[in-house]
């Protein structure tokens, strides 16, 4: 796999320029975003590289990756569909919705579809309890919220994501 320094040479310089030299460890978050953008997850090698760029211990980098639930160490699909099943959502049928979604995609929670496009994950409150069921889609570039979902609206979202995936990367986000 390509090193971050090769993929994002300029971006890394721009990020580092924002912090004084003796505080460059503060650049760890933006560098982790880059790493996740590059491969949809943060590999051991990427953590090592970031530790070296910032002159901090790899254990510290791993600790930050572990702290934030939106950083992923394990490989997943191109789109991670994260369904909230916390109590308020559960009261509005999130569990049943999650079940239907799994059936629709033919995978269980934590699994990835055979085409490598979708991983279903169960998450804690997304702060949209009043519009449950709710899920968010995480891809390399960020997050999209989808509220007041039924399995039919979810199907539309998924179809749309499939279409999007066919376009060459770097196209319209």
């Amino acid at each position, binding site marked *: 796999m390509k090193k971050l320094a090769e993929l994002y040479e300029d971006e890394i310089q721009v990020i580092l320029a924002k912090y004084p030299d003796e505080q460059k460890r503060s650049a760890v978050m933006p560098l982790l975003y880059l790493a996740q953008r590059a491969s949809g997850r943060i590999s*051991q090698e990427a*953590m090592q590289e970031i530790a070296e760029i910032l002159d*901090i*211990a*790899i*254990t*510290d*980098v*791993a*600790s930050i*990756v*572990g*702290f934030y*639930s939106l950083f992923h160490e394990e490989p997943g699909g191109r789109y991670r569909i994260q369904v909230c099943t916390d109590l308020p959502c559960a009261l509005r049928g999130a569990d049943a919705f999650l079940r239907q979604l799994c059936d629709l995609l033919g995978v269980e929670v934590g699994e990835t579809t055979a085409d490598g496009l979708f991983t279903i994950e169960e998450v804690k409150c997304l702060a949209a309890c009043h519009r449950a069921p709710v899920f968010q889609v995480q891809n390399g570039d960020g997050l999209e919220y989808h509220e007041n979902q039924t399995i039919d609206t979810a199907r539309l979202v998924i179809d749309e994501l499939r279409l999007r995936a066919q376009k060459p990367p770097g196209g319209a986000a």
Partner: protein
Amino acid sequence: MTDKLVHLTIDNIPVSVPPDTLVVDAAKQAGINIPVFCYHPKLHPVGMCRMCLVEIGRPLLDRASGEFVRDADGAPKLQFSPKLETACTTPVTEGMVVITNSQKVADARREVLEFILTSHPLDCPICDKGGECPLQNLTMEHGPGQSRFLFDEKMHLDKHVPLGELIYLDRERCIQCGRCVRFQNEVADDPVIAFSQRGRALEIITQSTPGFDSIFSGNTTDICPVGALTTADFRFAARPWELKAAASICQHCAVGCNIVFNVRREALQGGRMVIKRVMPRQNEQVNEIWICDKGRFAYHYVESPQRLTQPMIRKDGALIEAEWDEALDLVAKKLTAYGASLVTLAGGRLSNEDLFNLYSLTHTQGGQAVLYSYMAGGDLTAQVGIPPQTDLGKLGAGCVILVIACDLHEEAPLWWLRIKAAAQRGASLIVLNPRTTRLDRYARHVIRYEYGAELAALSAFQPQSRGDLPEPVRSAVKTFQEAENVIILYGSEGLGLQESKALAHACAGLLIKTYHIGRSNNGLVAAWHNANLQGAWDMGFSPINNLAETLSKAGVTYVVATDPAGDDPQLAEALQHSGFLVVQDILMTETVKMADVFLPAQAYMERGGSYTSGERRLQRFYPAVPPPGNTLPDFAITARISQRLGRTAEEQSPARILLQIAATNPAYAEMDYQLLAQVHEQQPLMGRHDLYYGGTTYENRQGLGAHLSTAASRVEPLNIPDAPPPPVFPVQEGLLTVVPTTRLYDRGSLLIHSNLLHQRLAHPTLTMHPKTAEAYQLSRGQTAVMLLEKTPYRVEIDLDEDLPHGIALLPRSVGIPLNAPQAVKLRPES
């Protein structure tokens, strides 16, 4: 401390403490134990566990007048916060009223414990911490008898996670106090463990290679308030309440950390007393409450199957077991016959008492007392070393610590910790070394010199000021000249015996010229490579340049506690040529194999004695386990030989030998074993009933030792020999100059017996700059052959861009006898 004291009451007890004292520590001083988990007196407070909640009231201030508001009878009106506060993060203020014994506080404690226990396995019966566990003790004292949470809903996590091969983590026992992580960050500056995940899923991780890569890792097991962190050494090895504690001094470097050997009878060992673990013993002037992992894990040689426990005599070419009388009679006979041609070669792990008797014997025979060491300057540290009242733990602004030719982290780990802390308190650290070391980060000035140029580098600090110094030397010299106190510490980086001698002289000369002698917090310190090299110098031993030649001409050679033949084939050959060879040791070595007579000695934890640390603190160690077989203490063996030669020598009591030392050596004049056994109360208070406060480090009840005076502090005339000629750094066309470095985990004859540390031992690796490797057509990982005095040695090549060009580094004590810089022939292995 001229600061005004702050007055408050805690549970109605009036307390006066310096400003900024935390409530928890103020309470401790009043004899009130506030329970804590995350707080530790040696770490910054974080307030994470909420165990220390107390009620706090503060007097109401009248804004206009700045006076306390008073009620009718004149008492200040108190305002209590609506909620409980954490005693570990709250500093005291004037007039504060703290309540730790109310129902409200008791409820809070009970609830916090109930909460912590919701996901704690409570497997105390199989937990190594059981019996000395803060969580267990606090639960018994303050916890609920029953939980309202469902046992089945506990989070179950991995129980045997090796963080490295030395430390194991039990994930479900961790109560997330963060002490271990903070110790590694704040104290050891090795952030190799950290938290990952959140909430109940929080866990300790390590990503370093090897895992938990820190020479201080064992300390986390002492301060972990539960059985989450345990050492591979002590895991499932014994219950704490079965253990007896014998006070001792670590034997593995010049720091002289105070330790305890925990021992018990072991059925598996036929009911013998055996050592189960090594624990730190508090001495705030030496090691505080910490020890390094070498000190913790390197004791296993004492139980090695290679221990020798019966005298032996060579008969028809083979060493045959003999009785003491027969062996000693033979030695005495040879000594009578060969008189003055005795050469006694002693190792630096012998106690002062052993060395005193050895020196007396050698001296009265007219023989030569030689120290087996590649460092010099013990005569100088005895005169201009740091005198009493010096405390590395208190150095701060106004002090300069100049460290030269030393990789302190490897050579004397605890000094590294303490000098780092001194620098963080404001002492000015000046580091002079040919390559980057872990001390650089805290240094105010870092000066690089080329290997071999240490004298030139130091000469810049001479008082005759020269305007033409380049930076960073100029500012370093300025700092040095402005300092009120100066301590110079030298090590053995890239030096041989001659270089060491020249450097020690230069350092001593500089201190004398700049009047940094004879006063506390001023003077010379050597980072010796053995525990008692300073003591050996004080007892009259010193190393010599032409060791091989001297040995080969000796009529009788008496080698004690060292293995020259195993270290160096040249010395082995010299011993072949020497006359009668008497070897006294505890283990089988190459030198023992060559002996004409072998005398089995006791390991230091099998008898009593004293060591003199590199700071020249005299400290006493006690017997921990009974001696095996037919062994005797070194001092007794030597005494018996002396007696056979018609002299009196003390063979029973090391205490009496110390009195003899005191009578002959003015630095030791006031020393006796009672003095060394004295203690006074130390802060923070350790090892009492409230283990949760400081951890399982032992309180010091057996003696803090005593700092020896120096000739300068006694205001005696100094006797500094002429400076030796500066050695020539070996450079030769076509050859590569290899310099020795010192590593903590070398392959020394004691360390090698501790299997636990095997993965971390140094290898015969030649490290050089990539450009240098290129010039010799070598690459990383390749094996090369290095010719040393015609003997070929295989070395693995490693590269390091931080190193200077044109030289290579080789660790000492890895099976290659390189103890001084040397130009060697190097070729790739064919």
